[in-house]
């Protein structure tokens, strides 16, 4: 195999100083180059993950519209309750810890899948799901409390934007939990097949991306909203 082709790209004095195989002089470069005819397209693992990466970035662009709406409407409380009255920093801190830890355990599940350890993979996926569910429970509880004190989405433009943005993230977490359960079942029944590993990899990307969006939410919505 052409194992040396990747690792020697940046080492001085090696034969391949053409990282993208453009020269196509040697047989190795031509065979391993992707998108250059002879090398053939990238492997299915790469194309699937790249396609999902494009989806995630589109999803983040959709979130940016909700963020823009919230940023514009954050002060439009219509003489009703503001973020300072409604947000509970302790709850948000716990939610942040839960989601961050679930992202970490999701990474541990990925590592366990690399080792082909079914028990460890299922265990860490299960822990990831539990943490995600606890996060979602706290969020639903917060929504219920807010609606209970007449601060539902119809109260003001600020609250409409808040429920749309945070609710959209919550919906993503909920769908992610469904996906997680499906992946656990598929992994259990079908084993470490190539297609199952691709799906598991895409799920990992999705879960980490949700954590990135939550970083923006807890900073821009909760911390800024509760301090100003």
């Amino acid at each position, binding site marked *: *195999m052409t*194992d040396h*082709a*990747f*690792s020697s*790209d940046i080492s001085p004095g090696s034969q391949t100083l053409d990282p*993208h195989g453009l020269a196509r002089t040697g047989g190795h470069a031509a065979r391993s*180059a*992707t998108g250059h005819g002879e090398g053939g397209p*990238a*492997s*299915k*693992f*790469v194309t699937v*993950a*790249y396609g*999902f*990466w*494009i989806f995630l*970035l*589109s999803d*983040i*662009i959709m979130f*940016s*519209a909700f*963020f*823009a*709406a919230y*940023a*514009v409407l954050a002060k439009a409380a219509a003489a009703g309750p503001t973020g300072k009255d409604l947000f509970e*920093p302790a709850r948000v*801190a716990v939610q*942040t810890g839960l989601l*961050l830890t679930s992202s*970490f355990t999701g990474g*541990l599940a*990925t*590592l366990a899948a*690399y*080792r082909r350890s079914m028990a460890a993979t299922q265990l860490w996926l299960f822990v990831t799901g539990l943490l995600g569910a606890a996060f979602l429970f706290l969020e639903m509880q917060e929504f219920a409390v807010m609606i209970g004190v007449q601060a539902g989405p119809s109260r003001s433009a600020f609250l409409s934007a808040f429920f749309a943005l945070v609710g959209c993230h919550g919906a993503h977490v909920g769908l992610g939990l469904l996906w997680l359960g499906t992946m656990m079942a598929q992994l259990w029944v079908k084993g*470490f*097949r*190539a297609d199952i*590993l691709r799906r598991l*990899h895409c799920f*990992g*990307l999705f879960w*980490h*991306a949700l*954590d*990135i969006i939550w*970083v*923006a939410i*807890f*900073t*821009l919505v909760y*911390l*800024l909203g*509760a*301090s100003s």
Partner: protein
Amino acid sequence: MTKIASKTGEIKDRRDSAPGEERITENEMAGGLSGYLLGFGLAILLTIASFLAARTDLIYQPAVVSALVVLAVAQMGVHLVFFLHLTTGPDNTNNILALAFGVLIVALVVLGSIWIMAHLDENMAVMTPHQAGTMP
């Protein structure tokens, strides 16, 4: 190290990395369990720093907003590097370019909306008492 090659049961592509794919090479710090632990620790520290900045008087108050934004961007960077395994290597060019385009659109949408709406707000005529009375 050689295990990585058979990770997906397919012949490994040596030119491009999939997004999130962990390709352990020499001098790799963001790989394996230690990479996840390091990322987790950094994310926790940045989260605590964010909460301290927002909830205490440690920081000069008018600078709190900037500090929070910087800490959030830093934490997103930590997630991208340690959890999503994005690198600046040649095998990651496609992933980085897609991300850069995404960041450009997000910045245009968010900053553009705030900018335009702030100007509209400032140039809006003050409501007359009659208009205010007919508001829903």
